[in-house]
């Protein structure tokens, strides 16, 4: 028994070392901008660059719209498929997996071909149109994660009976989705939302080919031209991701409880 525990701890320690040493090395390297001493100069350099805030802010905004679009598309879709068309689930599983097997490059070339300025729907003909296209593309990229998060959330509650209970009390479909379904899968939706945000913040291919000033192209650009700033940016990106994960944990506390406390 004691030996088993020792092995468990050893495996945990080795995994932690494997995970943290590269991070630590990146962090230390990011502090070495000033010759001979450790400093936050690389971070100061990053934060003094207006393009950092512009690209990060842009990606955050795209992320927010992607999340909203994702929720508006995925939540009702999963709800109706679970409730009325359960035979469609294998098809949904397949479709939502497609973004994982179709490279983003193929996706964006398809978009550009379909929605270029001389097409019937000339999304790329304007800045707003291109931004909309980017949001749609990001939503597609995040679809496997958002779909699975929402689907898992709905599996934990008896969605059919809750819907009927609300219906018989006079609730409309909108009331049911907004007041019953959504609050009960909020944590799952937020998990999907933060995963979506992480994907959008790091997205390079589509934003670059659509020529949008997103954080991904900025990171690549800095990475090819600077030495210490990319490490600082990597650490900042990690902190943002961890912050997002922390938010999920925090929000879980406010989630509706469906099980008995024992």
């Amino acid at each position: 028994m004691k030996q088993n525990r020792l092995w468990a701890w050893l495996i945990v320690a080795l995994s932690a070392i494997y995970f943290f040493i590269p991070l630590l090395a990146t962090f230390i390297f990011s502090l070495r901008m000033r010759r001979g001493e450790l400093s936050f100069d690389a971070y100061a350099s990053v934060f003094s660059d207006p393009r950092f805030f512009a690209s990060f802010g842009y990606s955050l905004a795209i992320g927010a719209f992607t999340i909203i679009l994702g929720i508006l598309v995925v939540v009702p879709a999963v709800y109706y498929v679970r409730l009325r068309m359960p035979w469609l689930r294998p098809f949904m599983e397949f479709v939502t997996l497609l973004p994982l097997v179709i490279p983003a490059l193929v996706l964006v070339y398809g978009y550009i071909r379909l929605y270029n300025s001389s097409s019937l729907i000339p999304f790329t003909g304007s800045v707003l149109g291109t931004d909309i296209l980017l949001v749609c593309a990001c939503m597609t990229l995040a679809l496997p994660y958002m779909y699975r998060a929402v689907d898992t959330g709905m599996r934990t509650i008896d969605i059919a009976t809750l819907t009927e209970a609300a219906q018989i009390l006079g609730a409309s479909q909108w009331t049911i989705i907004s007041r019953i379904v959504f609050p009960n899968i909020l944590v799952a939706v937020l998990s999907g939302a933060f995963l979506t945000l992480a994907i959008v913040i790091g997205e390079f291919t589509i934003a670059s080919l659509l020529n949008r000033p997103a954080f991904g192209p900025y990171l690549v650009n800095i990475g090819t031209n600077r030495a210490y700033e990319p490490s600082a940016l990597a650490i900042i990106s990690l902190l943002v991701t961890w912050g997002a994960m922390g938010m999920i944990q925090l929000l879980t506390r406010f989630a509706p409880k469906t099980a008995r406390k024992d």
Partner: protein
Amino acid sequence: MAEEFLRIEKLVKAFGANQVVKGVDLAFNRGEFISLLGPSGCGKTTILRMIAGFERPTSGAIFVEGRDITALAPNRRNVGMVFQAYALFPNMNVFDNVAFGLKVAGTPKAESAARVDEMLKLVGLSGLEKRFPFEMSGGQQQRVALARALAPSPRMLLLDEPLSALDAKIRVSLREQIREIQRNLGITTIFVTHDQEEALSISDRIVVMNAGRTDQVGTPSEIYNRPATRFVASFVGTLNMIDAVVADPAANTVRVGDQVIVLREAIAGRRGGEKISLALRPEAGSLAGAGDTALRGEVISSSFLGSVVRTKIAIGENAVSFDTFNAPDLRLPAPGEIIDLHFSAGDLLLVRD
């Protein structure tokens, strides 16, 4: 004369090729407590769900107070429903759960709060407004579900096996509470159950269902004492089914094995030699010689059940059980012993197959 409240006409429901409700006609009066009783898959829940509006009938119609509601959406039927799985909204506390229907209907806050208070008092859960469903027992959750269903003052209450998930003691107390509340409010209630004891104990009338059809509609006493079919006789209570053949229609006699007895119930219209089913309640028979009819049989077993002794005897091809009250000097018949089972001819019921 009782006022008709709900009428179901030639109701049929098919799921693909599987017809689960096969042309059911029913009429319920205002304020009645009706139980739809039957085994799993007999169509009782499907009928309830069609009344609620969750299932659209394949054909037929449902009328409430003379108005055809067959195609009406569930949220416009003004019906309360309690589900087997409680179906409380997990994200809402007791107060919000009970107030949900009132909120949806746009009831002013103060009025809604007073109504919630009244409903929680009715089900004996005052003071638990802030609790969440996960903090309550099954019985408490089901009482919240009942309060929630009654809060918007529905014109009819539907109960879909609401006691099935609860333990035996709670089931008995909650069914009594449901019946008391129903009586006080005078609300027409349809209760779906597969438990005959539950149906017999709380209903004004029982609809016994079998394979998508109604076998019998009657008061608990009628259903128990005068089962119309072999299915009702076997499903409700523990009636003995005895296979017999008509001996002489003119003399109203039947043959059980090689013994001929006279029936009190008329067997007019049946030919000699025709097979018929008879039912006999276990408590109707005795060894003491009481009653005007007797059947001789061989004892298969005798079991001591505390207050009663249950004896099983073979009469022809039939195994018949009968109960006698326990007494200190009672001698249990031994297996293999030949005995006479005495009963009144009036206790032998002729049932349809």
